[in-house]
């Protein structure tokens, strides 16, 4: 397997008028092609910061980030941020419009994605008419539209209730596996991390440093919902739970 991404000693400091905040320090990690990685950690520790720096929204303060030469990043932000004046199809085409690769072929690809993931009847609807789960799927397809191979997902399911959360995470898992994507996902939910990902990175309190990394080895790996019933599931759950410093 090739490395899609190598991170060495990443450091990020935020500067504002009154403060400087050390958000991430000494963060080193390699990501293999096709791997699903989860990042968990206490809230405010710097998880979103890592993704923002990786995709170039924020400048790093120090360290090294090396991408494989044909890595294309897709960043799915925590909020779906659909444009309410564009219909679903046009929302999904936004990225293609921006990098000027919108043509009949790429448009058909997006329509096919929408069809495959149960949004065929909503192609010309507006975001206001969609449920939270559908909106999240649209946001994912918008991210997939430009055909990235490395996906950064920031708490992609946090806006959902438990039931839809399970269903959508199964959906999205299948979409990404089928398309052979590599994924880094930030989440608060330990069960979600274990059930969806190959590796789980546990971060310390801010500034985020790597506390531990778990290779998730289940008896028989299948979809996230089934993985939750796996024998080894609770073993990892307890371990990770203890690793995260929860402050109540």
């Amino acid at each position: 397997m090739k490395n899609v991404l190598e991170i060495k000693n990443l450091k990020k400091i935020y500067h504002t008028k009154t403060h400087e905040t050390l958000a991430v320090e000494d963060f080193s990690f390699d990501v293999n092609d096709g791997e699903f990685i989860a990042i968990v950690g206490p809230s405010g520790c710097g998880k979103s910061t890592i993704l923002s720096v990786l995709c170039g929204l924020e400048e790093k303060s120090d360290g090294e980030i090396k991408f494989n030469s044909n890595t294309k990043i897709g960043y799915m932000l925590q909020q779906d941020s659909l444009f309410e004046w564009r219909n679903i199809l046009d929302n999904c085409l936004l990225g293609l419009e921006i990098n000027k690769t919108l043509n009949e072929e790429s448009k058909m690809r997006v329509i096919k994605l929408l069809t495959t993931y149960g949004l065929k009847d909503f192609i010309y609807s507006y975001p206001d008419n969609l449920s939270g789960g559908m909106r999240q799927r649209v946001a994912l397809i918008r991210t997939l539209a430009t055909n990235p191979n490395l996906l950064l997902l920031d708490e992609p399911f946090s806006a959902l209730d438990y039931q839809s959360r399970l269903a959508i995470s199964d959906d999205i898992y299948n979409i990404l596996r089928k398309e052979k994507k590599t994924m880094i996902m930030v989440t608060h939910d330990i069960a979600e991390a274990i059930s969806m990902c190959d590796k789980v990175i546990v971060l310390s309190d801010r500034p985020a440093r790597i506390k531990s990394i778990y290779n998730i080895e289940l008896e028989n790996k299948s979809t996230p919902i089934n993985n939750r019933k796996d024998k080894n599931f609770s073993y990892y759950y307890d371990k990770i739970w203890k690793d995260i410093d929860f402050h109540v």
Partner: protein
Amino acid sequence: MYSLEHIKFLKKLKREKLIVTISQLAIFIFFLIIWQLLADLNIINTFIFSSPKKIFETIVGLYKNKNLFSHIWVTVYETIISFSVATILGTFIASLLWWRKRIQKIIEPYLTILNSLPKVALGPMIIIWFGAGIKSIIFMALLISLIITIINVYEGFNSVNENKIKLMKSLGASKYQLFFKLILPNSLNTIISALKINVSMSLIGVIMGEFLVSKKGIGYLILYGSQVFNLSLVISGIFILCVVAAIMYYIVSFIEKRVLKKRY
């Protein structure tokens, strides 16, 4: 086909609307009748307070000697010009300020001061600079509507959700794309409500300008009426102004509905 309950519900809505409309008309008619009665019974002095009948006669008189519509047209024409210029120029300047945040920071205090200054105070100066003609009137109206347009539209540009901007950036949008794909369409509502304010602002400005200089227009009509102590003419002018203002407001509202409908 609707259910029986729904038809009942619609009927109720319709009835409610009818009652409101009839009441509105009734108030107006009642007011006119009382006014006319008081005038006929000599309880009020019609020389000062005029009467509906006299106002009607004045307007018919204006119409007969072919002055009515030329006065209205002059005012409407001046309003349309200053309204259009204020909207286009205002939106353009607001875009410029968004594009170059530093310019905005620099000129902000000047904008605030200009905005809170009662523009009518500049009247005498404007006359000297632009002469006693239509130029002064339009400049006056522009002063009043332009600055408020800039401020409102700029606020609209700046109230775009931070996450949407982040999204655009994560997709690799240039500043140009950010503006035309997100900032501008996202602010269309703000711009349209700025239009609504602009109609009234421009009209206020034009009437103020006409008070200062003109030889034609509704403002002139009102001012002239007061100078020759013809209160019927003054009130007729005000009445015509009300009608013109209402019509212009409804035209903009209509455009607003059309534009918003097209988007959703």
